[in-house]
């Protein structure tokens, strides 16, 4: 299946499970599909946060490796909210503008654990493979 990859307007070929088949982009700006969801869940698990905060936090903590485009971010929020992993709430921000704050739901926390475990399993497997190669 070919879908528009939701960030940075790069076109990717991804299968249903979110596994990437081909990827064409500069290495520094891409967040692997599926990984973005995990990063958001992780970030929000620390404290309720609004969109910009989440973007900055991901950027900061990854030391600029991941730069998240706001469009992709908000599409991801929509997806996660509908999946029941995030809750949102409109709050008045410092200068009286409406701001949407996201919190992690119970299901979201569980999902984060699942994804984290899965991620660790994969990365350690990849790491082992690379080591064996070298």
């Amino acid at each position, binding site marked *: 299946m070919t879908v528009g990859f*939701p960030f940075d307007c790069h076109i990717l070929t991804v299968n249903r499970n979110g596994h990437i088949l081909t990827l064409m982009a500069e290495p520094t700006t891409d967040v692997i599909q599926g990984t973005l969801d995990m990063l958001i869940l992780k970030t929000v698990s620390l404290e309720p946060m609004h*969109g910009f905060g989440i973007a900055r936090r991901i950027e900061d903590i990854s030391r600029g490796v991941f730069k998240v485009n706001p469009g992709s971010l908000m599409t991801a929020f*929509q997806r996660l909210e509908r999946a029941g992993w995030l809750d949102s709430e409109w709050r008045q921000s410092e200068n009286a503008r409406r701001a949407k704050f996201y919190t992690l739901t119970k299901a979201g926390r569980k999902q984060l654990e699942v994804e984290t475990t899965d991620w660790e399993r994969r990365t350690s497997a990849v790491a082992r493979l690379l080591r064996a190669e070298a």
Partner: protein
Amino acid sequence: MSLRRQAVAGVRALFRRRRADQDVSDEVEHFVEQSVRANLSRGMSPSDARRAARLEVGSAVHVREQMRDEAWENVVETFIADVRYAARRLRAAPGFTVVTLGTLAIGIGATTAIFSAVNPILFKALPYPNANRVTVVWEVRADGGSIDGSFGMYRELAARNRSFEALAVFKGWQPTMTGPAEPERFEGQRVTFEYFRVLGITPAVGRTFEISDDRPGGPNVVILSDRLWRRRFAADAAIVGRQITLDDASYQVVGVLPPAFENVLLPDAELWAPLQYGMSQGRAWGHHLRTIGRLRAGVDAAAATRELNQLGNTVIGELHPPTYGKTTAMLVEPLQNDITRSVRPALLAVLGAVALVLIIACVNVTNLLLARGVRHQSEFALRAALGAERRRLIRQVLTESLLLSTLGGVAGIGVAAFGVRALVALSPPGLPRLNAIDVDASAFLFAFVVTTAIGVAFGLLPAIDAARSDPHGALQSDTRRATYGHRRARAALVVAEVALALVLLVTSGLLLRSLQRLFAVDVGFDATHVLTMQVQTGGERYRDSATTIHFFEQALAAVKQVAGVETAAFTSQLPLDGKADDRYGVAFESKAARPANDDPSAFRYAVAGDYIQTMRIPLERGRLLNEHDRSDSPPVALINESYAKRTFASIDPIGQRLRIGPLQGVTIVGVVGDVRHTSLAVARSDAVYVSEQQWPFVDNVMSLVVRTRGDAADLAPSIRAAIWSVDKDQPIVSVALMSDVVARSAAERRFALMLFEAFAIAALVLAAAGIYGVLSGSVAERTREMGVRSALGASSGMLLRLILRQGLTLTALGAAIGLVGAVAAGKAIRSMLFGVTALDGVTYAAVIALLTAVSALACAVPALRASRVDPALTLRAE
């Protein structure tokens, strides 16, 4: 959980789009603001900070699009947008839309309505378990006609046969119920005990009849229909065992039939009682009972016929029943064939006609869509050139086609619902299973799918063309070759339409002429100013035949006293009322009499009063019956002219003697004119008129015929009152003008004709629309050519003729092809024709004239337009 959230969120977004959009904008704005602040704090100048933030975020609209792309409700939104767009396009072409919708509505609606009516009657199994095993048994006369069975034969066959699980005989019964409520006459049946077993029905409450109920002097028991039980007894749960009064006698209710029970043998029947015949009765061998049987599993009708034939002849050989000849023949036939026999040819013909209408509708839709496609070709090419995706183009056309079909389908359902109701309302009396007729979903689906498939297929052609072809070429005005091909296709479609319309016009023309011929038939009596009604005696008092005769005499005397009554009489049967089939075997005593060719039976009219005078049947020789022909005087009879001529040739029939049924030694005293008895189309007219008093048994149902001076209908109330002045408890039914009775006798033909006419007119209109469409399209495409011709000196008359010729050539071609079909169709409906051949020249000539005139009219407008082309204008425009 998440599915529900998905749905809720999606639906909320759909219905509160503005709010959802506002949320996104707010969130984006907030993001931008935060970004600006972060940039500022990083030391950017305010304008740089703002620009960088904007650059990072992009526009809110873009984000919104991105989010929508991923949400499922987006599909719905695109669909709605497509539908809106399609609706706009259809509104922009009101002529096309109305004609297409009309065509679809007629095609789908008419097909559905007709199939809905025909399906339960002809094709669906009767509502009985293993309905294919329920059969009717007829005795077959030498001339091939079938007659009712007798009780004696039923008893013998029931005892001896191996083919049937159960056999039953029955006859009509019209008891009058008296009691606390008003007296009411019901339709019912007297049946032998296995009647319901043959049909495979058991009562919902109570029990069915048992053999102990069904013997002479047996108990008065009755089974009610569900309808009657609810209507008259308020669905009384304790009905079984209750006594009700029928014809002055007390009957015990033993059962109520299930609500779904449909008594196709007599749909109006509401109660049933055992027949209670015995072999000692005189009527035991009389042919007046209908026989039905349930075949054993694995036995077919042909095998059963063979067995009964053999058994019937054995019975005759052993018992020598007086009402049978030396041999007999039996016919076992599925019940469904039996009840549909009279209407089957007409229904099949109508089904064929409506199929033609559906085909014409399809052709017309194809035609309209092709024309529209040609007009939109350049639009599609342009859009393709501007980068519209092929998928998107096709999806839009598809939406438009489906919208059109759906609207057409909705209109079609309306037409079908109306049509079914109209069919039931207008249906002839002989149409069985009326209450089973309802709009048939599968027929509707079939018609809908066919027309939709055609709509989609031909709607898509131009879009596929545009998407596939090189837009550059299509945009250039080099479309002439393509349109030429389309024009050829459309011309072929018009030819097909004309041909089909001709077939329908010829068949309905033939039916129309048949009906005209039929009503021109001399019925043999004068039906104007004659009022008829059925009078019945029933109840304890009338067990005695003298009382019954006395009642009818007194009633007649009272009727004659009514002001405005000229003459009046009672007759045991009324010609052409659809029930007149009371025949008895006749034998002439004289050796001079030529034996009857094959069927020795004649219609028996037992009359009281001046029947012949009232009906104005001409007296050819001898005298009429009169008040001196009483039960104690020698029996006399009148016979009809052709009967006398055939039997006695040149010998004087007056004074000859005959035997009719149970009445022997009858002297012929007069000869009267021939009368049509069973139907206008059936010439069989042999009849014997005897005095009611001299007939060996009494008819307790008689038809009153009254000739009036003024308007016959006005006298009905006073005549009824006169009869009730004699006995107010005797029911009077079937009050009708004799002229209406005659007209109704052709109701089935009239019904078929009406449908054919409607279809033929629809076909004609559709064909005319097709011709008009093709010609006006071709004139529009050839405007330039017309201009050139005109500039080169062609007069407007020449241009007019050019287009007319083009249109009439199509018509002529279509008509020529249609003639072949019409000849075949005429042959197919031959059994419905009367007095005209299937190749009736007048019909053909008239139809071709009509078709030519209509198509000339359809050509006229485009032709005039062509003739008025201004050469200067058109040439400059190019």
